[in-house]
């Protein structure tokens, strides 16, 4: 297991190097506009552009440019996202500052939503599978269909209109200045974003759990469990679910990791200053250091999520062994 972890960690680093290289090549080789020219504005002199270019390091050979950015990705104090390189070409705010300010918002949003969709999706899936073809099952599957089909932005506005504007049950969107993320969570400002973000996932998980459990309940070992004289409850919850939920763990790890890299639509509609908003703005403004920062952050979460899921599998499924 130790060797396996070391090998996987090295692989994770390799993935991040490749991602950073590709990101760099895409944004340097295919520039939408010259960052130096954008920085100095319209009315300027060629010398100013030249100075800006030198300040951004754009006059250096391409591998030196990459090396500057790569060095800033090494997680070491002083190096990590260092402000000599990692600042916005647009407003010169350091990338580190933006990411650290916005990350808690995205984490609160993604983690909270993931708890909601697990608490909604899995029980619905179980009930549907156990009472297959019943009214409950059909109602749940209609819910699942709606949940998967409803676009997030539509749902978000619907929620805002209904629960904030019309009924006044929920607080308005956004986080007021001076309020920390934790305070916002306590004030219930995340409840609507969580529900909206979680709904599609809950629907998807309900369908997946239902499908898995129905398939598992047809396995030979379930027949054996029944032949032992176990109660149906025990057959379902101890023998059926144990096998049916294992693949769900994989999905969960990857879904949550994906969201931690930014949740653009939900963040935008609910006016939450998270990573997703920042990433999209950075891309539109061809703001390379910011793009690099958020891309690596997203890639890191996905790679870490995959690793954790694989490690968790060794504990969940005795047939899986790592060497």
């Amino acid at each position, binding site marked *: 297991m130790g060797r396996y972890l070391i090998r996987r960690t090295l692989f994770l680093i390799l993935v991040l190097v490749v991602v950073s290289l590709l990101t760099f090549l895409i944004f340097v080789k295919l520039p939408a506009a010259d960052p130096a020219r954008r920085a100095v504005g319209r009315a300027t002199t060629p010398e100013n552009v030249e100075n800006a270019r030198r300040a951004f390091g754009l006059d250096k050979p391409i591998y030196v440019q990459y090396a500057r950015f790569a060095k800033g990705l090494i997680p070491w104090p002083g190096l990590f996202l260092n402000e000599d390189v990692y600042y916005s070409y647009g407003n010169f705010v350091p990338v580190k500052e933006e990411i650290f300010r916005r990350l808690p918002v995205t984490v609160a949003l993604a983690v909270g939503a993931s708890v909601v969709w697990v608490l909604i999706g899995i029980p619905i899936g179980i009930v549907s599978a156990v009472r297959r073809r019943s009214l409950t099952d059909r109602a749940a599957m209609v819910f699942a269909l709606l949940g998967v089909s409803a676009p997030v932005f539509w749902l978000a506005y619907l929620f805002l209109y209904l629960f904030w504007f019309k009924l006044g049950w929920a607080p308005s969107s956004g986080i007021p200045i001076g309020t920390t993320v934790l305070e916002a969570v306590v004030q219930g400002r995340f409840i609507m974003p969580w529900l909206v973000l979680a709904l599609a996932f809950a629907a998807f998980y309900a369908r997946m759990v239902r499908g898995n459990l129905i398939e598992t309940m047809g*396995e*030979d*070992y379930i*027949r*054996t*469990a*029944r*032949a*032992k*004289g*176990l*109660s149906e409850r025990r057959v379902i919850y101890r*023998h059926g679910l*144990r*096998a049916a939920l*294992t693949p769900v763990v994989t999905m969960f790890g990857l879904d949550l990791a994906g969201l931690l890299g930014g949740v653009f639509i939900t963040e935008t509609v609910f006016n939450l200053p998270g990573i997703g908003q920042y990433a999209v703005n950075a891309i539109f403004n061809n703001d390379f250091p910011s793009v690099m920062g958020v891309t690596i952050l997203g890639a890191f979460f996905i790679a870490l999520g995959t690793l954790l899921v694989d490690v968790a599998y060794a504990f*969940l*499924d*005795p*047939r899986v062994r790592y060497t």
Partner: protein
Amino acid sequence: MPEPLLEVRDLSVHFPTDDGLVKAVDGISFALAPGETLGVVGESGSGKSVSFLTVMGLITEEQAQIEGEIVFQGQDLLKLPVEEMRNVRGARISMIFQDPMTSLHPYYKVGAQISEAIRTHQKISKQEAREQAVEMLRRVGIPRPDERADQYPHEFSGGMRQRAMIGMALSLNPDLLIADEPTTALDVTVQAQILDLIDRLKQEFNAAVVIITHDLGVVAEHCDHIQVMYAGKIIEAGDRNDIYYKAHHPYTWGLLSSIPRLDESGAHERLNPIRGLPPSLIFVPPGCAFHPRCPHVFDKCRAEIPALLPADGHHASACHLALEDKERIFQEAVMARR
């Protein structure tokens, strides 16, 4: 015959499907004495497994229309409430299945799966249950049972898994063990070991055994009685000698002739299968269900369902042929080729 342990009377199990009613089991009756070994032989889809899954209560009213009586130790199992049936299942009647690879839960240790069965029916501590589980593994011939109990099914070979399944099935000392194709998924060498093990444990535990198989060769040495099923009905029943040396039904002849011979004279002979396919269980042929495949068919076979009639005290067959013809054809067509 002493008081039967299990008596099945006119049992039918019909599955409603979108294509029509599948008559998987269609009016079978038989009895099983305590300590007896019964072989149930037939092709896939002859209803042999479904009959005994119904005896186990593993096919429910929700899935199928079940009629008839299953009297076990004086109780009609079909009338028992679900909870009481659960007390019978696994404790007084237990069952092992065809594929030991998939019949054990892959996520739980073998010992734990056996002690779970024990603790379902006996109020004992986990420690005691585990000791009993280890003891069962030892009795079914698994070496180092104490270590093996803590292993997962994937660490067992196929034969070992089937041994563990047998251990689990016998852990509550049942009066009846149903073995549904217990050796089909195993290597030939392991097959014999498993059947010998069942024979030995049957003596030790004093249990009656039902061996369900499609292979007449398998049940030859191990069964007292044999019944042959076709299209949901019993078409011939008798003791071992009746079936092997005096078979009365053309389908049984077909089964006997299709056992490959491995001696000198058989070496150059072609395999001798029963021609045709098993019938649809939705549109069962009228008259004798076997008539479209029967080489001895005559008019009556197409019109009238033959009853299972005893030729003497114990040997019964469901065929319209006259007894003399049956005996003659059997000698000419089956025995002569052995």
